[in-house]
């Protein structure tokens, strides 16, 4: 493995790309907006995920599934350099965004995160009003907006939250229910008009009804945004995503666990006709 090798070879280590089946995935999906090539993430000397290569297709939902400790969240966080915030975290290999290496020396992580937003596992609205939560991103990034009110309304509408909160924009975001808080976090994310939204198990803290709302919202948003979602809920991946990456945890000779991408494919194919025995075992419930 050559970690500096940035050559992108879709179809070599990645199954299924370029052979769209019927259904959701777009037929012109051969031009990925992001590309991981031989990506390994380290925490200090520990290699948490090794040698991951996969594309992220534009305006598609890509799901990352796998058992706990398989590195799916770690990989997700490497896509907008959130791992930078963890002391000792390091990425080798190449993560490219429109062909540009995100980890190149001259890349500003703030600019990366403006284009690649993130929604977290636990809803984390700021202890501010609903309005200020949504306006936060546009304000800190210095977005030129003709009307902040319109921008806030637009973002809340796009996050399917407007009708529930339009009369109480000045109340604290923390007064909302868990599902509403998560949609507020999505509204907050799309308010800065990112190109890609990363979602780290966005429904794991929510009840089934709130989960269904977020899933509908994701499908809606995939018309305008590229979405990458980490989930431990296989049904969710099967329901909402166009592409699925299955990760697993391997135990090496030193008894250390390393996350590893097993299979990447169109979601329909991965769930009905997995290429790898480990994927099949996982999705049929024999493992994990």
């Amino acid at each position, binding site marked *: 493995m050559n970690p500096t090798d940035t050559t992108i070879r879709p179809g070599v280590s990645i199954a299924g790309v370029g052979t769209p089946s019927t259904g959701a995935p777009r037929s012109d999906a051969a031009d990925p907006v992001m590309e991981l090539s031989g990506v390994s993430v380290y925490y200090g000397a520990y290699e948490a995920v090794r040698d991951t290569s996969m594309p992220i297709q534009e305006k598609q939902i890509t799901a990352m599934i796998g058992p706990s400790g398989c590195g799916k969240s770690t990989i997700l966080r490497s896509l907008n350099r*959130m791992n930078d915030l963890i002391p000792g975290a390091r990425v080798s290999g190449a993560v490219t965004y429109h062909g540009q290496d995100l980890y190149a020396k001259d890349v500003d992580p703030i600019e990366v995160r403006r284009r690649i937003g993130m929604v977290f596992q636990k809803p984390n609205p700021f*202890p501010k009003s609903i309005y200020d939560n949504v306006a936060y991103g546009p304000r800190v990034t210095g977005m030129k907006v003709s009307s902040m009110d319109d921008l806030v309304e637009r973002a809340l509408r796009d996050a399917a939250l407007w009708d529930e909160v339009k009369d109480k924009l000045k109340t604290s975001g923390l007064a909302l229910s868990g599902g509403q808080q998560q949609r507020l976090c999505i509204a907050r*994310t799309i308010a800065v008009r990112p190109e890609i939204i990363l979602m780290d198990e966005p429904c794991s803290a929510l009840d089934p009804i709130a989960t269904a709302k977020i899933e509908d919202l994701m499908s809606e948003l995939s018309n305008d945004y590229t979405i990458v979602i980490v989930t431990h809920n296989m049904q969710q991946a099967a329901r909402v995503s166009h592409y699925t990456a299955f990760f697993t945890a391997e135990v090496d000779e030193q008894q250390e666990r390393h996350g590893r991408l097993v299979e990447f494919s169109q979601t329909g194919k991965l769930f009905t006709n997995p290429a790898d025995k480990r994927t099949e075992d996982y999705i049929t419930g024999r493992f994990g």
Partner: protein
Amino acid sequence: MSTSTSNAGSAAGSALRRGRRRPVDSTVKVLLVAAALVSVATTIGIVIALAQPTVGFFQQVSIVEFVTGTSWTPTFAQKAYGVLPLVAATLTVTGVALTIAVPLGLGSAIYLSEYANPRTRKVLKPIIELLAGVPTVVYGFVALFALNPLLQRWWPTDNGPAFQNLLIAGIAMGIMIVPTIASISEDSMAAVPRSLREGAYALASTKMQVSTRVVVPAAMSGIVAAVVLGISRAVGETMIVTIAGGLTSDRIVLNPLEGAATMTAFIANISSGDIPVGSLDYDSVFAVGALLFLITFALNAVSIRMVRRFREVYE
């Protein structure tokens, strides 16, 4: 247990019964309750001790004269008991102290909580807290004999600071309360959940924006508590103002370059002289003490309300 309990069952039951009392446990409890009661009793004792001479004072001096009079001269032949000069000096010194301590304290707290790497924080925080242990008499003398001469030398105009003045006392007091504000604010910022910082970073915030727009507002209850505690310490501080603050109290001094007696400085000064117990001078000390007690009490009440108001529930 029911009557059908077998022998084995009752044997097992008796094993759970109290075999013996634990005398150490109950003794410890009594000691701990006593320890807690001592501080409550002390507070009540202070109120009682203040009350009697204060009542005596107000039998001879009207409350209106006390709170509106602009001259405080109990030791002069021409006696006047207007407390405003003392209050004004206290406010001036406190104001100067806060002007110094709030930016420095908050700045240190933000640096320690958001910028310093863990190893630096581990070294720096105890050093800053150590500053809080410096005896105030040291601050007073440093202010009078080291800082004030510098201030006088560097002062751009002719009518510079006096030998004792409110400005230098306030500066020294400000440095004294920096550790209080820095330490409590830092605790409060460190308690802001990591998830809020991540949320802010994910919205393309810079470190400064995360600090000032998310962490500081979320930690506001602790910061307010820290500042109010700082004010309490400043209002009640005695040694620095006695040494470096001056003694003028026959008129309201608004110029911080002049010296003037604060409430605490007056009490310290007059208490160190010979004043007959039961005299009006003696009672005046307690009247000022009672006012000081009321102000501190009010500050604490305000701080509790503010802390509640700003408290944010994170989950």
